[in-house]
């Protein structure tokens, strides 16, 4: 991997961090409000299901996570294990796919549930 690409990865991680700073702050507030008086499936589906705004919000959230987390893991693996760079990059790349697939599945799934 060229030094320019490595630098761009670092920059992408910082930019996704800025996006996540806003998204996580909103999410944390939402969690603490939502758990008041207990949590039920009906409540969650009623609030999130079919909502375009929330789908868009969580879609951006998932994308930012998919950029931010694997790049971070890449650094941790490179510094704290003996794994070869090829393997480290491979694991990070695989993790990106996992987050994107599972995350988008959840987002689109809830959007398709209607209700709301």
């Amino acid at each position, binding site marked *: 991997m060229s030094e320019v690409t490595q*630098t761009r990865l670092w*920059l992408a991680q910082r930019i996704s961090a800025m996006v996540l700073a806003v998204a996580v702050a909103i999410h944390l507030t939402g969690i603490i409000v939502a758990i008041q008086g207990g949590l039920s499936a009906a409540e969650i589906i009623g609030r999130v299901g079919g909502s375009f705004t929330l789908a868009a919000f969580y879609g951006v959230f998932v994308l930012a996570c998919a950029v931010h987390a694997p790049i971070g893991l890449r650094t941790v693996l490179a510094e704290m294990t003996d794994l070869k760079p090829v393997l480290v990059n491979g694991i990070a790349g695989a993790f990106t796919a996992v987050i994107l697939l599972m995350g988008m599945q959840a987002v689109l799934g809830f959007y398709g549930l209607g209700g709301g």
Partner: protein
Amino acid sequence: MLVVEIWRGGEDGRFQSFDVPRLENQTVLDVVTYVQRKLDPGLSYRFSCRVGMCGSCAMTVNGTPRWTCRTHVSRVAEDGQLQIAPLRNLPVIKDLSVDMRNFFDKLAKAGGAFQSTKARTDNFAQIPPADPQRKQADAGIECIGCAVCYAACDVVTWKPTYLGPAALNRAWTLVNDARDGMGDKRLSLVAGDDGCIACHSQQGCQEHCPKSLSPTAAIAGLKRSVAVAALKGKL
């Protein structure tokens, strides 16, 4: 009496115990010197000015990298015990002497050499001391290359190819030197996984620098410059 453990041998050596008379005004360098002169002439260590100017006497004292000539035993000896080891992150030659070549090579690798743009017959550069760029440079030019920051940095420990705090601090002083002609080329040298972006801002360098410099601040400056250059496609 002080019980002093001193590292003997190379990478696979061991700690050896010595009994050293405790004096009222005593530095760790005094202790090491006593051991070499009175107890074991085979002990290898470095020192030069012994007054806190050259940085040659840097060693690990009770786990932290320090200048031994500027470390009073009374400040660090926990119940009369002292552990003296060579600097971390550098290959051990023998006992308390380490091989500084990697450290100095990285200074050059990070673009630490000033690149002149004027001839002897040209006028002096006119830079007011209050110039903001000059102040950034001034904040880092007192570095004497003692490697204490390098020894304190965990990123160097975990990633031996990392350029390190001193080299990057030096690069930043030149990035801010209006007389230097290297420009973006130097930013290319400090970018990449081994460059400024590897710094996690642990600030161990700043914490332990005997001259109270802040390589972390310099590296943060480099990160900003590198980010802008990357976005502009100038790397």
